[in-house]
């Protein structure tokens, strides 16, 4: 029952399990315990979930207090459907390893691309030097 139509409020979401995506790319899953007018969140029994490909790993983190401006989005997790996922859970060490491997691969390909362009006398301008409007 939303008594204020057209608005969004986190009050109905309290004490429910949520998935929160932060600006730095982290994914947190926890019970939303408290909010305030800035959408600062208090997450309880939080778990940081790292996804690499089809695998994911959970790192238990405890209680999180997230400053509202750092939240990209958040959504309630349906506890019944939570386990209904094609993804495979692995251990923390394994997922961190996978993540490291993925980062490395990305850097390698980036380096190759820049090299190839340089050989052809081209360069991709960095986003901050673009004067595009």
């Amino acid at each position, binding site marked *: 029952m939303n008594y*204020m139509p057209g608005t969004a*409020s986190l*009050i109905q979401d*309290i*004490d429910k399990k949520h998935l929160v995506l932060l600006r730095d790319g982290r994914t947190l899953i926890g*019970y939303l315990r*408290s909010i305030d007018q800035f959408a600062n969140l*208090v997450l309880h029994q939080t778990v940081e979930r790292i996804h690499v490909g089809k695998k994911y790993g959970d790192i238990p983190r405890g209680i999180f207090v997230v400053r509202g401006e750092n939240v990209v989005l958040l959504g309630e997790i349906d506890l019944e459907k939570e386990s209904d996922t094609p993804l495979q859970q692995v251990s923390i060490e394994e997922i961190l390893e996978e993540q490291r491997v993925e980062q490395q691969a990305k850097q390698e390909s980036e380096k190759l691309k820049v090299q190839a362009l340089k050989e052809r006398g081209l360069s991709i301008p960095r986003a901050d030097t673009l*004067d595009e409007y």
Partner: protein
Amino acid sequence: MFRYQSLEDCPLDEDEDAFQTLGEEDEDIDQFNDDTFGAGAIDDDWQEAHERLAELEDKPATARELEDGAVSDEMELLGHHEENLAERLSKLVIENELEDPAIMQAVQTQPPMQQPGGLNSSIWDGSAVLRRFRGPLLTQNSSLLGHPFPPSVTPVFTHLQRAQLLGGAQAGRMSPSQFARVSGLVCSPLTSMNPKLLQGRVGQMMPPASRFRAFFGAPPPPAPPPSQQQHPLCPGSHLQNLRPHPQVFRPDTTHLHPQHRRLLHQRQQQNRTQHRSLNGSAGDRAGHRSSHHEQLRKDPYANLMLQREKDWVSKIQMMQLQSTDPYLDDFYYQNYFQKLEKVSAAEEMHGDGPKKERTKLITPQVAKLEHAYKPVQFEGSLGKLTVSSVNNPRKMIDAVVTSRSEDDETKEKQVRDKRRQTLVTIEKTYSLLLDVEDYERRYLLSLEGERPALMEERKQKICDMYDNLRGKTPGQERPSDDHFVQIMCIRKGKRMVARILPFLSTEQAADILMATARNLPFLIKKDAQDEVLLCLLRPFSLVLYHLPSGTVTSLLQQLANLPQSATVPAPANLHLAAVLQNKFGLSLLYLVLSRGEELQNSSAAVELMQDNQWTELMSMATRELLRIPEAALAKPVSTPSNLLSLFSRYVDQQKLNVLETKLQLVQGIR
């Protein structure tokens, strides 16, 4: 027994009705600063208060009497800290009022203790001891807690805190803390359900005190709660003094719209009834309530956020809905709702009756207040002290603007600066455009007398826009298209020109058209990445249909890039060629030709036919069209139907056939 005044007779049971009315108070969230530092701060006489508390120190024995066999931990605490009792109590009283329900009372002198429930809620521990004393205030609580404390202990606090409150109220302020306290009491049945979760709120400590709020807080309650009558005279005298004082009116934004307030209280009451029934009934009344109860039982951490805190947040949200100009602040929602309402009104007109009751969000309009800022003045100071604040920032650094000399700049920088200038011009012109587009709405809303002024303003703005587009020159002529071309090189500029065109007069619009045609190849080149030129087609075509024949001819001339005096046409007209190879260019050319054809067919056509220039241009155009290989020809947006008849006038049958196939002028071919 403690020595205290007549306040001891205060009955400490709760009165639901009183709390209801209390809940109707306004909350002044913006008063935080004032409450802490400014006029709203309690100007208690701390010495007096301290003396009273010192009396407590003389009775440590009573503290021991309070111990129960209930929880050994707690007993230990009591035993250890009875000496510090007075200290802590004084700290509690003299420290800041609890303004924000989220701000915890920082009374921490003992190490956190392990709660029997396994919850390490150490943040609550500070008040754990104090809470014991408040138990009896809430009779429901006391039964659950099982600590039958003598009421004697409590009134000392409450007296002091009452004094606090009264002092605070006298300043005419109502801080959110007072609201919070009130709501805290309202929620106490809930908190009693979670005895383990220590709710060491100030709110719980002061039910009698807050009852006084009802008098000078909100508008007087409809019927004074019966318990009031039992209250002794002492605080009553305070009240009598305060009652005749009118409530201090704050700036509008801190008052809740009545509808919002109603919603808030509805919700509060709902929750109260919910929890009361849960409390009172042996079984569960309704399914959903039982699940709620279930939920709370399974999840020991539930409701860490109190209902009053939730209400506090929604209150802020409701306040944020207040705006001085909903059209400005909440454009999309307001427009959306207007559209919906129009649709439903239309439906209703058909006699179907109201289809749906759409609940609209209440966005109360608040009057804009003019704040005249007066800098702070201290009494007794010699001269004026400069106090820096948000409204009156003080200059900290003497930053001097040094303009760069022209020679130092490199070409690149100059180009960059020029581009930036253009961007600024675009932005300014865009604001003017948005204003002009909005005039229609304003016109409808305005009074009769204001309308001419509005029209004047609008006209002026349109002129300004045009000047911005073409670049203001002191002289009458506009020798260079440079300014305009710069604008047209930028994606946003092109879109903006497309939007401005409908507002310009015919001559001004024609001027723009000419300038575009003149520089078309250059613009085409620049547009290769954006491909936004096409957005100009529609407004251009609209303009074209208002143009006289002479202008159309010149326009074609520009497209073909011929100077006014006819010269020997070069074998290949590069300008025109470029135009033809671009979708926009070709489409524009077609439009111009089509218009020319239309004019020919009309009565004014005689001039056109006799116009050598037109004939020449036409032959040039056809020549170019024939010359260009079909593959290089662009695909126009639309091919006007009268082109065939146009060409038939200027070329022989053979060429006509070629043109036909090439340009797919006959509808069937496609």
